[in-house]
């Protein structure tokens, strides 16, 4: 048993830290968020050059043969830096799915392009009536001769505006909430019949409502087996949760350490705020929440790396803890910063908003607690 980072992993972590230190102060991030696509293509090119887009993929697929543990290292640093580039959508969600279920042609065309940095992709899964239920899919793909016609609307599709490829979950059989009868299609982002309403999200990212109207796709566009796409949807969700949790762990670390630094320099009643015991204890609790979250993030990630049967349950547990801890840490960070905590000017406001959204992605605390206790 060895929980320390390997030499390679430490070098990798250092390089991510250096990139963020050099490129990602708050005002730069603000500029990126306000730009047309909401992130920097220049940064994305650098990610490709640094090899970060190749990390989770096998050498056979043109990757570096990394594991979810390497993604965890990266996402934790991205969480500290509040990185806005579409890594989750492109690499973690669509990349993971392609690596697992893609045909050689799909891999060559799309996964290769993702690794090189030439293709951006996203996963369209959420629907308005579904709440957090991934198998609640109404968007349909009906057969029309040799092709399928996709009809329906997907919500909060991350970075859809920039996506060359959209992976979309559709209903090809059965009833609205059946786990069977779901098929995944890879569709061009600019395919005829797709319309988008693009918008910024509160945490500084980008998303869209994507409507499909008679979008024609051929059977070659299916990822995996027709009608059996749900297993892949769950896999994508698992990997996204691991990545989001690592991001949250990074964000929580910044929040509690920033709060410590702030209370040390802010004086009231003739003392630094950090002299007051009630605040010391609160910050101790913030530290504990972060530490426990990090532990469970490591545990769930390692179980997933090992392909363990216990991984699924640990991932539910992780999303529960991350949600609860994030709330505690981010709310208290604002509280202990006092009035300053309410301002857009300080970084903590932006971490606060990001963490609030992470809880809502791929199932919140209540959703995963309900699943956890039933396994």
């Amino acid at each position, binding site marked *: *048993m*060895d*929980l*320390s*980072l*390997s030499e390679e*992993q430490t070098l990798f972590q250092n390089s991510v830290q250096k990139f963020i230190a050099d490129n990602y102060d708050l005002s730069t991030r603000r500029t990126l968020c306000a730009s047309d696509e909401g992130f920097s293509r220049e940064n994305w090119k650098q990610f490709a050059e640094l090899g970060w887009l190749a990390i989770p993929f096998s050498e056979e697929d043109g990757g570096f043969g990394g594991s979810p*543990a390497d993604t965890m290292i990266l996402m934790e640093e991205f969480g500290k830096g509040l990185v806005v580039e579409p890594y989750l959508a492109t690499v973690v969600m669509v990349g993971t799915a392609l690596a697992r279920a893609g045909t050689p042609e799909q891999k060559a065309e799309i996964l290769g392009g993702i690794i090189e940095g030439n293709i951006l992709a996203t996963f369209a899964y959420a629907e308005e009536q579904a709440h957090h239920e991934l198998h609640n899919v109404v968007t349909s793909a009906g057969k029309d001769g040799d092709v399928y016609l996709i009809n329906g609307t997907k919500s909060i599709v991350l970075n859809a505006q920039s996506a060359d490829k959209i992976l979309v979950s559709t209903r090809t059989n059965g009833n609205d909430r059946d786990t069977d009868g779901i098929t995944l299609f890879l569709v061009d982002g600019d395919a005829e019949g797709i319309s988008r309403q693009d918008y910024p999200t509160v945490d500084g990212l980008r998303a869209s409502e994507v409507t499909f109207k008679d979008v024609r796709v051929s059977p070659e566009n299916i990822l995996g087996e027709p009608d059996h796409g749900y297993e892949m949807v769950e896999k994508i969700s698992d990997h996204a949760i691991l990545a989001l949790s690592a991001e949250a762990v990074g964000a929580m670390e910044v929040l509690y350490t920033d709060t*410590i630094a702030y*209370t*040390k320099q802010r004086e009231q009643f003739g003392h630094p705020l*950090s002299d007051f*015991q009630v605040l*010391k*204890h609160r*910050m*101790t*609790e913030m*530290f*504990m929440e972060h*530490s*426990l*979250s990090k*532990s*469970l993030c*490591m*545990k769930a990630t*390692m*179980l997933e*790396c*090992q392909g363990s049967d216990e991984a699924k349950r*640990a991932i539910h*547990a992780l999303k*529960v*803890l991350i949600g*609860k801890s994030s709330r505690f840490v981010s709310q208290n960070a604002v509280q202990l910063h006092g009035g300053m905590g309410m301002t857009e000017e300080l970084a903590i406001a932006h971490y606060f908003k990001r963490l609030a959204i992470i809880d809502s992605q791929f199932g919140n605390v209540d959703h995963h*607690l*309900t699943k*956890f*206790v039933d396994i």
Partner: protein
Amino acid sequence: MDTEFSQEDLEFQKEVQDFIEENLPKGGDMWSGRSNWFQALKEKGGWDVPKWPVEFGGPGFTPTQRYIFDLEMANHNTPMVLPFGISMLAPILMNYGSKEQQERFLPGIRDHSVNWCQGYSEPGAGSDLASLTTKAVLSEDAKDYIVNGQKTWTTLAQMAQWMFCLTRTSSDGPKQEGITFLLFKMDTPGVEVKPIVTLGGSQTVNDVYLTDVKVPVENRVGEEGKGWTYAKGLLTHERTGLAGIMNSVLALESAKENARSVKVADGTLMDVPAFKNKVGELEVELMALEFTELRTLASVSAGGSPGQESSILKLKGTEIQQRISQLNLEASGIFAAPWGRVNPGPRFSRGAMNGYLSGRANTIYGGASEVQKDVISKNVLEL
């Protein structure tokens, strides 16, 4: 990074399991079999004192082996050992005691023939232990200390033959200085033990009154005035052992079993979402704490210090223990009430109330949770 045990560790785990299978006293003879069990552990090569260093007869486990050993022992519910001698006093004697003291006291501690109790807390010195006032004055011939004062919350003093005790030999300078570590027999004239009945009705803790108790100078451990330093090391040791995480894992499983035995409407208590979710939340936190302990262990295995994470084990571990006892209590429903020798209602309900009541002490002893938070904020967060 990997969490899998090495081949050697897996073999060691098997060895421990086989040993337990072969030697653990079965069923009814748990009590009479105790001494055979400890003898077998000893003959195995120091397994009776898993934490002792090799030069004192310990097995020289690596941190991972010790973790596996503790895990298997907890999983098989092996006989418990009182910590006072083996875990608390022995390390102090090994580090600070004289050769004579080590030879005199360690064998009796190891074979359980001498029971020890801990004389630390006083009516005026609880969390603020260094403010203790029990006085030890050197006699005119400099052969004995004469000890006067009162100790309290002394666990199992009524069964102990000896006490290790913190006394004040000087009031000059900071309160942490001038404290001296003494050992004396409980049948020394002037030692009087009075039980304190706690809210669970048990009589395990005591007041110990010390009136002109004569303690030979050779029973002083280390230097006069340095006792605080010795005890502080021991308190840290006590705290890491108090998280009881493996026991909590088992306790939570048994709490779930208990809840499944309670019929509610068409199902059991474990089908009631409000209850089930509480169990789930607790289990999630326990999973995180378990892995936090592994992180601590891994960092020690790699030759480092236990790391920041270790500081939260006692704090969170005891809170979890209390919440598990609360689940049992809630599962008992109205049968939480009957007291004494009767046990109507579910079988577990009598123990449930006991556990709930006595468990309130977990976040108080070994440094109250609030003191732990002070310690973490100062030492870890540098506040």
